[in-house]
């Protein structure tokens, strides 16, 4: 990417931000934290996958989904089903009436494995399903909604309803899904004990690695023409449509992309935490995910990662220090951030820190690049590709 010469200046600066994040996640945190805390950071990072998807889907394309927990949960359940089957060998479950099936099925008087559990004996199928199942559902929802031009608030409400429906379905069908308890007591992945400290540390690095893969995919999309169309669609959907683009197809694509990210995050969550339960799918969980994204800055994929990290770290920190009062502290944090910095941490960084950086490195605040003639506020234009100049032209709120 460095060789695309007119963008070199931006790319190097943007590159530094990625490098800083990598440094933080790969070097600083593993050195500074013990395995227990590092495992918790790993858990927070799994939410960052969802937040990146939301930046693409909500921040860029203006499609607010209040049901990302559904895709997170589906990915997580796919992984959990595989792990649970591995844990439910006939020897390990000899005490049951029907050995060889997961324990909760036995409690619910099931005597054989339901058909849809069968394929999850295979690891490759599971890997496929972790991305495939959420994407398929996202495609069906997206196709049904976007081709009918359902959007905005209506779409948000429908995604929320889907989150509620899936939760009720999973809780109601406890013989097949583990019900409200979820799928618990997961021990090994292909014979590898995922509960040890070493395993948890390795899983953390796997998580960081995949996070960067997702970051680069998201970055790739947003920097192509595709990304521009998404942003344009957000601002002036009709103009994009009249220009001959199939708006619905683009929306379905970005919604599926966000679902895929969420699914991967969910699967990693299951591995890192060791179980999956319907509480990650429901409305509250889904809205929390939107908050991660809003707090980090809904236009910045890097901001989303920091948002997920900070909100969850604050949640753990507050609840450990003030077990009786922590929900108020969290509420105050959310309200404070939304009131004071509507563009989240990324917006804050952009307004206050970046000008400092400019002075520090003696950079001209206006390097004419992709939008040469536009007299935008210096700091904003400076932002790099996360803050595409397109966004300065059209405020996303207008959609």
């Amino acid at each position, binding site marked *: 990417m460095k060789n695309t010469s007119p963008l070199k200046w931006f790319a190097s600066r943007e590159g530094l931000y990625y490098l800083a994040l990598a440094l933080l996640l790969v070097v600083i945190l593993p050195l500074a934290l013990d395995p227990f805390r590092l495992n918790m950071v790993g858990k927070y990072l799994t939410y960052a996958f969802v937040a990146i998807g939301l930046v693409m889907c909500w921040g860029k394309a203006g499609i607010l989904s209040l049901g990302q927990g559904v895709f997170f949960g589906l990915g997580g359940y796919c992984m959990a089903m595989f792990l649970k089957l591995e844990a439910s060998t006939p020897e390990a479950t000899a005490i049951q009436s029907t050995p060889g099936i997961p324990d909760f099925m036995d*409690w619910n008087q099931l005597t054989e494995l339901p058909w849809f559990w069968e394929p999850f004996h295979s690891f490759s199928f599971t890997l496929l399903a972790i991305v495939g199942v959420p994407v398929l559902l996202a495609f069906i929802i997206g196709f049904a909604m976007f081709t009918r031009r359902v959007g905005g608030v209506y779409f948000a409400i429908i995604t929320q309803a889907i989150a509620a429906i899936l939760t009720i379905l999973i809780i109601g069908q406890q013989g097949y899904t583990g019900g409200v308890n979820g799928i618990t007591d997961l021990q090994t992945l292909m014979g590898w004990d995922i509960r040890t400290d070493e395993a948890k540390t390795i899983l953390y690095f796997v998580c960081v690695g995949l996070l960067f893969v997702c970051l680069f995919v998201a970055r790739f999309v947003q920097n192509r023409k595709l990304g521009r169309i998404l942003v344009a669609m957000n601002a002036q959907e009709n103009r994009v449509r009249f220009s001959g683009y199939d708006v619905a197809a683009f929306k379905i694509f970005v919604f599926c992309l966000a679902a895929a990210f969420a699914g991967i995050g969910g699967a990693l969550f299951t591995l890192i935490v060791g179980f999956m339960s319907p*509480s990650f799918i429901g409305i509250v969980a889904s809205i929390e995910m939107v908050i991660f994204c809003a707090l980090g800055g809904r236009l910045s994929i890097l901001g989303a990662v920091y948002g997920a990290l900070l909100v969850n770290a604050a949640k753990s920190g507050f609840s450990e220090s003030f077990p009786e009062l922590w929900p108020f502290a969290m509420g105050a944090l959310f309200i404070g951030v939304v009131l004071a910095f509507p563009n989240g941490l990324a917006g804050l960084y952009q307004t206050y820190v970046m000008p400092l950086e400019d002075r520090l490195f003696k950079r001209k605040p206006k390097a004419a690049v992709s939008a040469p003639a536009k007299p935008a506020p210096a700091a904003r234009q400076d932002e790099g590709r996360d803050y595409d100049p397109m966004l300065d032209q059209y405020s996303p709120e207008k959609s």
Partner: protein
Amino acid sequence: MGTTTIAAGGRSHKSKGLRKSLATLAASIMLATSAQAATPATDEVNTTGLAVTDDTVKVGILHSITGTMAISEIGSVQAEKLAIEQINESGGVLGRQIEFVQEDGASDWPTFAEKSRKLLRQDNVAAIFGAWTSASRKAILPVIEQYNGMLYYPTFYEGLEQSPNVIYTGQEATQQILAGIDWAVKEKGAKTFYLLGSDYIWPRTSNKIARKHIDKLGLKVVGEEYYPLGHTQFNSVINKIKLKKPDVIFASVVGGSNVAFYKQMKAAGVDFTDEKPLLLTISVTEDEIRGIGGENVEGIYASMKYFQSLDNPNNEEFVAAFKEAWGDDMVIGDVTQAAYLGPWLWKMAVEKAGSFDIDKIREASPGIEFTKAPEGYVRIHENHHLWSKTRIGRAKTDGQYEVVYETDELMEPDPFPEGYQ
């Protein structure tokens, strides 16, 4: 054991000044002398790196104090803190004062898992008193087993579990159900039953056991229904009940649904004091009645091991101490009492083992008797559950139960009941 007053005890608590300072003085003198004489060295009683010092030992309390379960779990927290305070007052455990780290499970199962890991990994607690719902127990169980912790779990639950790292101070399902149904059959001549519950593992397992037992007695189940947690529309089932006219409604509806259920029963003209049908619940304790309203449940029967109104000297002391610590308007339900047993049973296990090591506590636990239990007397079974009596109470309008029956013998805990699976 000094269970008479909860004044004093190292840390501050609301209590009367002079008596407190005197008692503290007395306790500290006793402690100082006994510490020199009898306190065993820390490296002898703690070989696995638990948070034990020469004069303190750290334990964890892990319940939901925020979220939907808080209303049920706070009673357990209070009981556990009371027990810890009383133990400290009477000299602590192996000469060490108990300090507790409290964490909030926030009615959220993953949070429970995270916090239990924190308690075991960061705080190195010697025991955890906590979890309430089956889901929260299932969430923390793998963590407790992995790091070899010891959990004292207070809630009556579905059984089908027997972890080496858990002491179950509540009843498993058969201890609540079998004697309750036998009582209804013998004393009330019940022939037909209608099973009704919330839709999750505990009511389903309980009703499975109830159904098998009813079948064995040669009697009949005329209906079985489940409703999602939080369900509030019971009109259809009330109509079905009116149609089928069972002798007994066997109810295991939990949480907020109870409020709707009992109010709607009353509105539909069912007067429980007529006992036509008789309602026998295994899920409504004094705590729940506070939410439902005593006038709505008057005349229902509950099958539990403990009621606040139990008439014995242990319970009198316990109720008085609980109210002094937490306020006169507090009520004490079955689970709250079971939670109170946890710290005491742990203390006795530690002292019997002469060590805080989890493996030694596990070995020492079976056979431990607690004669000062508010419910009367309990003993730990080989399978880590408690021998307890089953009692039937009849609800009064003031929200208390009047005990009408108790089993002569202690009921043996049987988490994997043969013939009931």
